[in-house]
């Protein structure tokens, strides 16, 4: 279970960041530029965390 923990977390976080980017596009369509910028920052943070989880998954020893 522990072996797959980082892999599953990485996929969930990277895939989950897409929700924030989708909402960012929606806020842009509503002309709420501040909101869209905040959502983009959140999405970027989430995907960065997901990237780190993927990196940890790849460097795990057997």
């Amino acid at each position, binding site marked *: 279970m522990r*072996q797959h923990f980082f*892999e599953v977390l990485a*996929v969930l976080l*990277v895939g989950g960041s*897409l929700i924030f980017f989708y909402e960012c*596009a*929606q806020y842009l*369509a509503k002309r709420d530029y501040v909101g869209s910028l905040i959502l983009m920052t959140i999405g970027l943070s989430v995907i960065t965390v997901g990237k780190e989880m993927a*990196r940890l998954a790849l460097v795990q020893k057997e």
Partner: protein
Amino acid sequence: MEQAFANNGWRKAADAVTAALGINLWAALLFVPALFVGAIHSTPMAIICTLPLVALVVGLVTRHAIILLLLFPLLLLVPLVADGRIIASNIEGVGSFALLGGSLISYLLGASFMSAFHEPTPPDRTRKLAITRPGEQPRSTMPARWGRRFRVFNAFFVLSIIFPAVLLYAINFAPDNQQYMRALYVNRTASMKTVMNLGVLVWWLALFTTHFLGPLQSHRTGDKQIRRELAILRSDVSRGAPRPVFYLGVLGALCFMGLLLYLRYR
């Protein structure tokens, strides 16, 4: 002899598949819609529409990955910019857009996979290195760390298809967003969509480079790539003339300046 024949057969099949996928993309994205809206009405336009095919043929003959994966898709965009009616007729529905997206992804996957068939001939004999401790049996299954790596690679591959598709859907097809844009960007909806699509393209390229390729870069094993990069660096140092990318940049800049002038003053 049999190995050489098999390699040659595989290469021809690879070229045929790449050519078929490229022609399919050109016809679906450009040629058929251009004929439908009557965009090929002058010699310059006919030349612009034929240029991607020329690049495809050159890329197949030289098996140059940059021509197949970058130049050919870029040249497909030129007629779309010259006459916006071509792309407008393509993205009216989710189905047609999905079909186009599928054609593009199939071509990129096929071309990148098939262009790997220029690898050197494998040696006549190979021997596996059995790394075992005394008394142990050699491993016959893949080590767990490689299984993990392939799972992460596959997951990122699937996500890299889903990401741009969802973002493009949000801008071009999501009903709520279309309603907002029509209400808030009156008479400017098409322009705003174009800007947002370009923004998504730039954003996705940056995201892919930093967050998708980033974790995988340090796990590219095998020193073929490093040896190739070192050889390129050595030849660059001794080379007195500009590299081909310089000429490509100059040509691209001149062509797009010409296109801009043509669109502004026609």
